[in-house]
């Protein structure tokens, strides 16, 4: 049995679980016009973490002369919170693994300095006049390096690895961590994802014409696209025997998971939701859950014209037209891409602990008569909760949490 013994989160609705819980309860979304990201697209609504890189670094005690990327700053904030809740300190990490999900990695710095790099390469010299030598950001560009920046600022993990499956990255990190524990490789694996906003992917999503200039309306008939967001979240997964021996209080149990490939299109979901259907089915089979036992689904629900009906069709295939209570929380945070799987997993854990279903913000009109999301946060006892995360390439994942521990 795998328990969750710690969780940490940072997103547009707050730094840490306490602020996050307050926002979910009071239906306070964090999506706003772009403020921190330097972009021409000032018209964009985004879910930014309300701290600049400087403020993040100062709060986290990161030296000013260290080459740091925003993805890693967000990751450090969330990882430290998760480790603290699980009661883990530096000495405990040597037999703990970290599985991180990211796709943007250090792109936020690469896009600032790329032309300088090329000039420096042409002149074959290193520019070292600034506080951080600009070329140091070449070293922090790749996904794996941003993971190690996060890990090494929290201790010395026994193993680190990085999953990069776009918007399902953090959900797949949860799955790999669970497998590592099941296989007897580790008793404890910290899993999750981190992703900062970057001009690169804001523009990328813009070229795909799936950004809404207004606050996104997931699961709504009038939805017109997504708002990008950013953030990070981590969960401490722990073998039950080890967790109980340490006397740590578990938050929930990881009861099942699934991953399948839609194998349909690089950026679009199939109309029958085949990948999503398989992922949810696998997770429920593993947990031994019948459709009627699922008390809440945190949908991927990006708010794009294509995603939401595909996901609803997959849900209809699993549950029939009487769906469990469901909502997309992307109206709160925007789509936090690679981090969304773990950020929304933490939302699910908070929902279970505090007996509530978080609202699907900005909902007015259902896509299908049988598909009405929970429009306002409400009280509910939650025993089994399903959390979906789907990525480009039809990379579809679902994880299932149980409250009984």
């Amino acid at each position, binding site marked *: 049995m*795998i328990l969750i013994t710690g969780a940490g989160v940072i997103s547009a609705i707050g730094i840490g679980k306490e602020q996050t819980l307050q926002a979910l309860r009071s239906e306070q979304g964090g999506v706003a016009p772009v403020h921190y990201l330097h972009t*021409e697209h000032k018209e964009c609504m985004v879910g930014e973490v309300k701290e600049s890189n400087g403020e993040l670094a100062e709060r986290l005690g990161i030296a000013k002369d260290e080459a740091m990327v925003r993805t890693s700053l967000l990751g450090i904030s969330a990882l430290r919170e998760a480790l603290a809740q699980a009661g883990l300190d530096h000495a405990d990490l040597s037999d703990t693994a970290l599985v991180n999900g990211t*796709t943007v*990695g250090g792109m936020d710095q*690469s*896009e600032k300095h*790329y*032309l300088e*790099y*090329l000039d*420096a*390469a*042409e002149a*074959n010299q290193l520019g070292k006049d600034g506080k951080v030598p600009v*070329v140091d950001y*070449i070293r922090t560009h*790749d*996904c*794996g*390096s941003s*993971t190690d920046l996060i*890990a090494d600022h929290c201790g*010395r993990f*026994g*193993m680190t*690895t*990085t*999953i*990069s*499956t*776009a918007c399902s990255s953090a959900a*797949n990190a949860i799955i*790999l961590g669970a497998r590592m524990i*099941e*296989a*007897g490789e580790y008793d404890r694996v910290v899993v999750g994802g981190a992703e900062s906003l970057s*001009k*690169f992917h804001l*523009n*990328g999503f*813009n*070229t*795909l014409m799936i950004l809404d200039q207004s606050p996104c309306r997931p699961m709504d008939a009038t939805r017109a696209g997504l708002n990008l967001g950013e953030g990070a979240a981590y969960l401490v997964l722990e073998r039950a*025997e080890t967790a109980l021996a340490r006397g740590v209080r578990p938050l929930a149990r990881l009861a*099942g998971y*699934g*991953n*399948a*490939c839609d194998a349909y*299109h*690089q950026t679009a979901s199939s109309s029958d939701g*085949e990948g999503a259907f398989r992922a949810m*089915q*696998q997770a429920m*089979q*593993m947990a031994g859950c019948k459709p009627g036992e699922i008390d809440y689904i945190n949908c991927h629900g990006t708010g794009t014209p294509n995603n939401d009906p595909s996901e609803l069709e997959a849900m209809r295939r699993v549950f029939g037209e009487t769906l469990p209570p469901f909502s997309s929380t992307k109206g709160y945070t925007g789509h936090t891409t690679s981090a969304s799987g773990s950020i929304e997993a933490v939302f699910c854990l908070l929902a279970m602990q505090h007996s509530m279903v978080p609202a699907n913000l900005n909902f007015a009109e259902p896509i299908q008569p049988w598909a009405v999301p929970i429009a306002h946060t409400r009280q509910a006892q939650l025993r089994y909760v399903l959390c979906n995360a789907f990525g*480009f*390439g*039809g*990379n579809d994942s679902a994880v299932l949490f149980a409250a009984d521990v």
Partner: protein
Amino acid sequence: MPLDSAATTVLSFSPLMYNLYTDCPMPIYVLSANQISLQQPLSQDWMHDPVLPTEPFTRSIDPDYRPYVSPIEARRMGKLLKRALATSIQTLRDTGIEHPDAIITGTGLGSVESTEAFLLDMCRNGEQLLKPTHFMQSTHNTIGSLVAIQTKSHGYNATYSHKQISFECALYDAWLQMRTSAINNALVLGQDATTPNYYHLFNLVGYDGPEMKCTCGEASVATMLATSVPEGQTPLCQLRGVSLMHTPDNRRVAAALERMQVPADVVVLAGYNGLAANDVMYDRLLADVLSQAQVLHYKQLFGESYSASALGFYAAAHWIGSGQYRQILLMTIDRSGDVALTLLEK
């Protein structure tokens, strides 16, 4: 709807004090392995007639892609995607496995050609009129997704992007899932391209350079792992285990070698490249934990890149398959000191 029924049994598996390397009787076979690199593509000609690189940066030799993808489709794909597709489809054809249970990719930088095209366009021309194709192909998991889309494979799909041990991370995932009976076979990829600009950037930060004794190259590898051998086929070798460690001290590596039951006189295939900062890490570790090992190099043949170790794996599998060695330990130490050990044997 047929689902992966094996996946449902995983959570009931009780592995306490179980050594996956030695206690599990289920063998994992390497059925096939193919490469596109600076050597002759999709062939093992390098074993008797190797291409000897003379330039500090050598791009891969691209084969005729028509047997693998239609010219119309190929026109929309970057180089790396075509290479990934060709190595994958050849491997699927070799093994007769049409829809693998899992497609798991390792890539340090993803489709860097597309990433760079989008980035340069944005940096030089601003944020208007950018092209969606470059963005779509820049995402790291485009590679594994493309293989799944082309082969209609709905199984597990994952991509690892973890420095120079990205391929070993992919291998580790496949190995874990086979050892716990979650899957029966996996197509594992190691795919990285290097653009001229990136070659120069790596020079700037000392990742390669004139003093490197091998060329900077590119790597595309696909390999099929399976828990059983299809009738009429002969596997290249067996995968005994994979171990990944974050900046371990030598004692920890020694413990991993013991757990994997690696003999003291093992043949080690190590990632030496001639750069002092790289080679000294191998020297120190080998002298301390495997002083009696016979040490082989592979980067003089295949070059240095984020997925170079995938070519090391490929070479080791074929060396064992051809009877030249009985057992090889592939050792990769990345720039930050992470160690990946992969044990292959007859």
